[in-house]
């Protein structure tokens, strides 16, 4: 039978400080680990929430982002003849032909950041029901006017309702602030598409077209018709949400790889800390180990008792680290999404997968840090241990 668990737990009480410091070290690493995963999940959540399930986005196949996509006027007309497209009150196909560019804004800290500027067509309202004006008013489509997403207004001195921004040789007045329900659009500036095409001298070639289906389930039929059309071979149609979801993969993957690389390095420190603590525990309790062995406990019982001790420390560190990381959900940060070349604001998102991975990571550190000391304890000869 094994050495009782309350023996393990009671030993913590007799060396509170070293145990607490070891737990704190492990908790810190788990916190950073969980924060990285939450960051990546936050990027995904934000971009996957961008767009409507009924909307279809048309882009040029060769483009790896909206700004590098170009769609000429003829193609814009062809796609509107495809089946299952929703119509507006005036009987025309609902569509938003959107030029997209990246402009520079001055941040609160004085540095520059890239911001996506999107021109939207006059009838975009029914296609983007989640977009609402929360301050000021909608832009006038006949004027050089802008509305600003709620996630960027607080971060850029230039981006205030009432201020003007200078680009494409014109002064643009910000007349309102909009909310797009926490999605990626909240990190953008919007204006009227034709004002933008005019200012940038782009004729009528836009970056993307967004169309609305009668029902989300019509997509497969629509896509088949789209792909059959010889004139549309250079373009691709995707659900709007899938398109933005894919845009998140690069950034989320980058955060994960870099972040996990950093935490793995940190974790070496925490594991060495746990190892030192456990080696000290073994050295301090040599006589105890010798006594238990003399009484008839097997080597493996000693091994297990010390491994459990390391695991309990690791679990405590894991729980505290995850609990602290949970608090990060109240913070929102921004990062450059290199797929769209512009900043995106997002929140840390705690997911069950993050909790599980973080705890597995903590347990892993406990086992690695505790293993060698536990082996040392189990290998002590009884008489050497009893001599102290």
């Amino acid at each position, binding site marked *: *039978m*094994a*050495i*009782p668990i*309350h*023996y393990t737990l*009671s*030993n913590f*009480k*007799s060396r509170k400080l070293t145990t607490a410091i070891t737990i704190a070290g492990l908790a810190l690493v788990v916190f950073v680990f969980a924060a990285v995963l939450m960051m990546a999940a936050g990027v995904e959540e934000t971009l996957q929430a961008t767009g409507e399930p009924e909307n279809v986005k048309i882009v040029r196949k060769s483009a790896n982002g909206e700004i590098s996509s170009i769609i000429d006027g003829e193609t814009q007309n062809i796609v509107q003849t495809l089946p299952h497209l929703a119509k507006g009150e005036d009987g025309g196909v609902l569509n938003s032909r959107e030029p997209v560019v990246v402009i520079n804004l001055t941040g609160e800290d004085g540095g520059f950041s890239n911001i996506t500027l999107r021109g939207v067509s006059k009838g975009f309202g029914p296609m983007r029901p989640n977009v609402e004006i929360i301050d000021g008013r909608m832009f006038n489509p006949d004027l050089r006017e802008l509305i600003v997403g709620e996630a960027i207004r607080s971060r850029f001195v230039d981006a205030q309702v009432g201020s003007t921004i200078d680009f494409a040789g014109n002064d643009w007045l910000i007349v309102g602030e909009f909310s797009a329900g926490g999605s990626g659009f909240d990190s953008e500036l919007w204006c009227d598409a034709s004002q933008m095409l005019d200012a940038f001298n782009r004729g009528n070639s836009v970056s993307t077209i967004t169309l609305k289906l009668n029902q989300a389930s019509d997509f497969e039929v629509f896509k088949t018709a789209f792909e059959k059309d010889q004139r549309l071979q250079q373009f691709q149609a995707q659900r709007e949400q899938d398109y933005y979801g894919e845009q998140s993969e690069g950034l989320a993957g980058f955060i994960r790889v870099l972040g996990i690389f950093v935490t793995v390095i940190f974790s070496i420190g925490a594991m060495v800390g746990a190892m030192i603590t456990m080696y000290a525990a073994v050295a301090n309790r040599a*006589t*105890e180990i*010798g*006594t*238990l*062995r*003399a*009484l*008839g*406990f*097997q*080597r493996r019982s000693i091994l297990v008792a010390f491994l459990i001790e390391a695991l309990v420390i690791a679990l405590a560190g894991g729980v505290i680290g995850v609990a602290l990381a949970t608090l990060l959900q109240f913070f929102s940060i921004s990062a450059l999404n290199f797929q769209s070349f512009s900043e995106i604001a997002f929140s840390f998102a705690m997911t069950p997968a993050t909790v599980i991975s973080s705890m597995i990571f903590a347990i892993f550190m406990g086992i690695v840090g505790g293993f060698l000391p536990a082996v040392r304890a189990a290998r002590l000869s*009884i*008489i050497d241990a*009893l001599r102290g």
Partner: protein
Amino acid sequence: MSALIQVKNLSKSYWREKFEIPVLNNISLNIDAGEFLGLMGPSGSGKTTLLNMIAGIDKPSDGEVVVDGNVISGMSESQLAAWRANNVGFVFQFYNLIPVLNAFGNVELPLLLTKLSKAERQQQVETALRIVGLSDRIDHYPKQLSGGQQQRVAIARAIVTDPVILVADEPTGDLDKASAEEILALMERLNKEFEKTIVMVTHDPRAAESASIVHHLDKGDLVKEVVQ
């Protein structure tokens, strides 16, 4: 009938780097069941080493140790551990109680290696603590007890499994005179009343008086046997 404990031509040396240090030289010794044997001798004469061999926590370099018909010097390490759990009670000079366990927890430890139920264990722990006169200290921790009381808890731990032999290495070595006498009286009672076979190492001639037979060791040789 053969003796309970038979030490046959036992030699032991330790290796320090490349030098062999002989500690025990060809020792033979029989201990009958119910005997209270004292081992005396100068420091470094090999008393502890011989005791460890009899208790099965060290192995001879040559010769064998047979206890109750079992050749313990030939057992594997895990067989030996199981054998000790069932057959040997240990009493150490510095008590060696587990500081984070109370008297009950310490005495219960050897029973965790048996198949006894929780209730049976509790009953045996209480009996052992009653025999050593510490029923009222069952939930005290080692640091809340005097040296003599700690040694009595250690004796309770040694007898709780009702082992065949008790081994004690200077059990009074760390105690004042009054406590030492209490412990010796207790050991004598365990020997007479409970018929425990005891092997006790001691420096103290007064302690040796409790034993029924005393063997003297000098530089690894048995030099004298005194029957009392």
